[in-house]
């Protein structure tokens, strides 16, 4: 769910652009609870794009529980010849944030400010 949320965010920003796993980043995020972790995680993925123009393609988690996330992030720098940006996202919000589990399948709803 955390992985798909991040890829969904990048999809909103950069559409169906083909993003390759050319560069590797690592990330450690502590949090106070599950919702906080999801917002902080997506905020990091957004930051990588907005500050460093790094587009996320794939994620490998080393640690993932309700209050800690350690991950390896694969992706590539934004390339105007290859990628087409669709939308600027200002921030990830807690507005009506919902994380649910049904029969072992986790779903999350996150509103972003655009």
């Amino acid at each position, binding site marked *: 769910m955390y992985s798909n949320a991040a890829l969904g965010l990048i999809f909103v920003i950069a559409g169906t652009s083909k993003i390759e796993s050319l560069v590797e980043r690592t990330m450690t995020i502590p949090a106070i609870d599950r919702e906080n972790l999801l917002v902080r995680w997506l905020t990091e993925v957004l*930051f990588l794009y907005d500050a460093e123009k790094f587009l996320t393609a794939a994620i490998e988690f080393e640690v993932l529980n309700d209050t800690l996330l350690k991950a390896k992030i694969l992706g590539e720098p934004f390339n105007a010849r290859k990628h087409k940006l669709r939308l600027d996202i200002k*921030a990830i919000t807690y507005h009506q944030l919902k994380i649910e589990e049904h029969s072992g399948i986790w779903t999350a709803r996150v509103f972003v400010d655009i």
Partner: protein
Amino acid sequence: MILKKLDDYRFVIPKSFQEGMKVEGLIYANDELIIAIEKDQTLTQVANVATLPGLVGRSLAMPDAHQGYGFAIGGVAASDIEKGVVSAGGVGFDINCGVRLLASNILLDEAKPKLDALLNKLFRDIPCGTGKSGIIDLSFEQLDEVLKKGASWAVENGYGTLSDLDHIEECGTLVSADPKEVSHRAKQRGRDQLGTLGSGNHFVEVQYVKEIFDEETAKVFGLHLDQIVVMIHSGSRGLGHQVCTDYLEEMQEAMLKYGIKVVDRQLACVPIKSQEGQRYLKAMAAAANFAFANRQMMSHWTRQAFKSILKSSELRLVYDVAHNIAKEETHSVGGRVLVHRKGATRAFPKHRPEIPKDYFNVGQPVLIPGSMGTYSYVLVGTERAMAETFGSTCHGAGRAMSRHAAKRNASAEELIHQLKEKGIHVRGASKSGLTEEKPEAYKDVSAVVDVVHNAGIARKVAKMIPIGVIKG
């Protein structure tokens, strides 16, 4: 109906509306606008704000109010400076998103033949659109100077003149700003975005003055019929967004320490006098300064375009106002308070020391941008706003349709054609961005402005119509 109608333009949300409300809510609207406001979560959000500790007066919403994140957009809330709280969400992600108006000495008929050339130049010279970087390369040290000095930094570096500063809220510099309280991450996001318009609802519009409601005040503001003016709407870009994000996180953790519980996490807040509260206010002021500098730089390029295409260098700054900000002010209700304006405009009346000396005898200009195909307004602040709304009024038309709904069944080409038929020429960086901002996506700005005028919390001075729009 849960709301108590006080008169034709005021609706009270009683404390019984929701558990924990410490003060009442008050919505400014007419019978039609209140129906639109009731459709989304605005009332609940105004009531949620009323549960915050140390709130004074009422939790307010302007007629352009619509659902936001935590706080409604179009909301005003004042906290007691000693016992109250500051909330990063009460200012919002786009800190000091605001509007400025520049007035030319050119008449509509003189500008019309050269409009396309003017728009092309503006579109080329003002960086806009998704992911667009600015044209200046700032070091982190230089960025700190921008954060400290705001519009003054821009003027010192050749973007505009000293006289511009007199016509900006706070003279374009919040002196409480401290760049040290802005995270390195926020600076990384904002460093290459200074002097960029951004996307979404941000714009540069070439307009003309269509109607004057108050001759005397319009004259003092330097406005007259058929005059070409330019309106610039932009904010603090990624830097401001990250400052809000950072402090929302910090406030969430700090709330545990201060024993504060909120009904919506997006309302995270801390005591104003706390270390976290003071740090946020210094960082917010720095982000606000970034936005003042940003609009100042875009004004400079606009002036250059006017000089090059219309052979006119006069483009006088009428005023620049913040729409998203928190400020310490003194009011008859509550005394010394921190006023959160989220999608609301300061509207101070005449004889207030905070307003420019040129406008001292008439009041502060209030700039209200409409949607793409409709009007924009210049209003002036009133005594009644001081008494009722902590010197605040509306900020625009307010969304009536989500961006997603606006895009459905909408073609950018058709929209551009329709606007052209109405005499409005558009240059947009993104087609989907354009359709999100189509006129029908917004409430009727004239209805919104009529409510604040009739309620007495601002007074109409002039109405403008766009003839050219640059969209991010």
